[in-house]
């Protein structure tokens, strides 16, 4: 099968996406948590392409979240190595490596620390193919970073910066919701011919356990999934927030409200068609994310759906998000978009 990447071929070749169309959701596998699923994906990625590399701070011994365990031992220190503490340098280095036709899988230790690398991502990675007239590209670059609240993370271990990156044409932004999704999505991101930023919900690293098929599989990018069908209102989210939204949907069902829940998976470019079809069916939309509400990615979804479904909407689009404050320390429970806030918003939207 896809001896996927012609080892003799200098250019990176990418398997067709029909590979990912296999119905992964019904397959069984071993129960794994999120960091183990990601670890498996990385093992497969390095195994199938000899020109792929994993590097970042502390990845050699397995990383602070154990996502890279066993990689250095299995593939050697020349392919899996630690970098000094310099995010800008790490990402820039990754872009260079990718520009030479390699797959650079960069780890940024926490999404909160990605900002020194922001210039490299926005000005270099995103624009490389465009400004060189397709002579060069850094498609082999994948940046992985744990994001999101964890209960006690405070200002610098809990941020959700996805909105900043969704504003940059030229890169892709992907966020998985569970271990099985994470493995398939990560493999797709690594093999995608564009630079990708992959945010992993750190809260789920140990908490989420799911059956994950052991073989190599990919889940297509830019395809949203309806994970719960309903008729009264469409809920859109991604990452760890989906578990909270699912709880709200269950509670809403007890009150007779049937909710349709969509996992966006890829935020940039996002699957407008699936969300549009759903909202045309239900007539109501609610978006929820941990990042602050003003300027969050929910705003983009809201504006686009408004354009496409204006006449079908029964109520204004609702956004249940983090508050417009820095991610607080002791006030985290007030800041977070909790199940009750979502439930409240569902009810007020349905009863508009």
């Amino acid at each position: 099968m896809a001896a996927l990447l012609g080892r003799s071929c200098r250019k990176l070749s990418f398997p067709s996406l029909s590979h990912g169309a296999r119905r992964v959701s019904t397959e069984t596998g071993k129960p794994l948590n999120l960091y183990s699923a990601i670890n498996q994906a990385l093992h497969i990625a390095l195994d199938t392409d000899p020109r792929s590399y994993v590097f970042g701070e502390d990845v050699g011994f397995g990383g602070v979240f154990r996502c890279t365990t066993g990689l250095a031992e299995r593939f050697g220190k020349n392919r899996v190595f630690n970098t000094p503490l310099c995010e800008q340098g790490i990402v820039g280095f990754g872009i260079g490596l990718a520009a030479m036709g390699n797959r650079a899988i960069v780890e940024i230790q926490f999404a909160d620390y990605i900002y020194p690398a922001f210039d490299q991502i926005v000005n270099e990675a995103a624009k490389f193919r465009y400004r060189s007239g397709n002579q060069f590209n850094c498609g082999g670059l994948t940046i992985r970073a744990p994001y999101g609240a964890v209960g006690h993370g405070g200002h610098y271990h809990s941020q959700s910066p996805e909105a900043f990156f969704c504003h940059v044409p030229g890169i892709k932004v992907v966020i998985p919701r569970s271990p099985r999704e994470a493995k398939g999505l990560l493999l797709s991101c690594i093999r995608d011919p564009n630079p990708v930023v992959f945010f992993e919900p750190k809260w789920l690293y140990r908490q989420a356990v799911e059956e994950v098929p052991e073989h190599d599989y990919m889940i297509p990018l830019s395809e949203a999934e309806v994970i719960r069908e309903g008729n009264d209102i469409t809920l859109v989210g991604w990452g760890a927030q989906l578990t909270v939204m699912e709880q709200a949907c269950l509670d809403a069902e007890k009150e007779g409200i049937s909710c349709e829940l969509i996992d966006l998976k890829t935020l940039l470019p996002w699957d407008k068609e699936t969300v549009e079809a759903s909202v045309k069916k239900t007539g109501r939309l609610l978006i929820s994310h941990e990042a602050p509400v003003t300027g969050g990615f929910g705003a983009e979804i809201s504006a686009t759906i408004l354009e496409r479904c204006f006449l079908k909407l029964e109520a204004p689009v609702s956004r249940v998000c983090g508050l417009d404050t820095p991610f607080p320390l002791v006030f985290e429970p007030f800041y977070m978009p909790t199940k009750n806030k979502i439930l409240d918003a569902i009810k007020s939207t349905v009863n508009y």
Partner: protein
Amino acid sequence: MALSRLSSRSNTFLKPAITALPSSIRRHVSTDSSPITIETAVPFTSHLCESPSRSVETSSEEILAFFRDMARMRRMEIAADSLYKAKLIRGFCHLYDGQEALAVGMEAAITKKDAIITSYRDHCTFIGRGGKLVDAFSELMGRKTGCSHGKGGSMHFYKKDASFYGGHGIVGAQIPLGCGLAFAQKYNKDEAVTFALYGDGAANQGQLFEALNISALWDLPAILVCENNHYGMGTATWRSAKSPAYFKRGDYVPGLKVDGMDALAVKQACKFAKEHALKNGPIILEMDTYRYHGHSMSDPGSTYRTRDEISGVRQVRDPIERVRKLLLTHDIATEKELKDMEKEIRKEVDDAVAQAKESPIPDASELFTNMYVKDCGVESFGADRKELKVTLP
């Protein structure tokens, strides 16, 4: 007054026969500020400048104060460790025990007009700047009476009236800030300097070199202090730096390597650095120090270094033990007096913890305060833009 050449690294100490004498002949400790000169055990190594003299001018009062302050800091960090394990402190907690000599030595050389800015390992620096134990514990536990009103936590202690510009979470980000403070001091002709502290991990950040270049170009009174505790989280210096001689990394900026476990050496170096910075611009101080705890409370600290190494440093280089030996050999205090002092300090810390435990957590409305300046009239939205709308105070 006898001058004694001390090898504070040796394990043997001379037990003076003087303890047998009646107290009328022994010096009275706490009020004696007559000068003593002590030689540092380890010489300074310099880069592009003269080394300061190894003979440090001090006094019994000062050495005793070192002991008291360091013992207080040590007890505070240990108390913080227990509080964290008891889940009264949440979030992240980075402890400074082992590095106390740096905080007290620096304070002895400077005034409160000189500014200090550091990273997240800031509890002892805060105490050194005159912070109160109860303010520290309250902030750690996220209470209203904390030094940052409970909104900062362990990593963000500040003290404006003592020119302590705080604890910062992002590694290395405080260095350009420190150079900016130095610029302001020079502009205002304050005759003061700024100490920007960072670790061996941060020494590889690009922003350090940017700030250093600007400081050198404009002759700013900035002193960059690398607290080299040899491990950037779990990574040893030889694995992350091509040149672990951090005092030389300024290239065109002079540097000094100092034994950071010797409070007197630290004092001498900081005094030297302040004089240098006021006349000639930036200088780098590399403090060779060690932390006993791991990087933070989530790090056991023993997966990347051996327990033998940690206990070895504790036996041979512990800053408090060094000062204790100095006090005993110079007959400034007896062992019993020092033990009593430690007991008092232990009680002081326990009282502060108890008091901090009683203080209230901040009101929920504090979530929205101090984002912008007061009365800016900015609106902030709650979960659903319709239901909760707050005009920020």
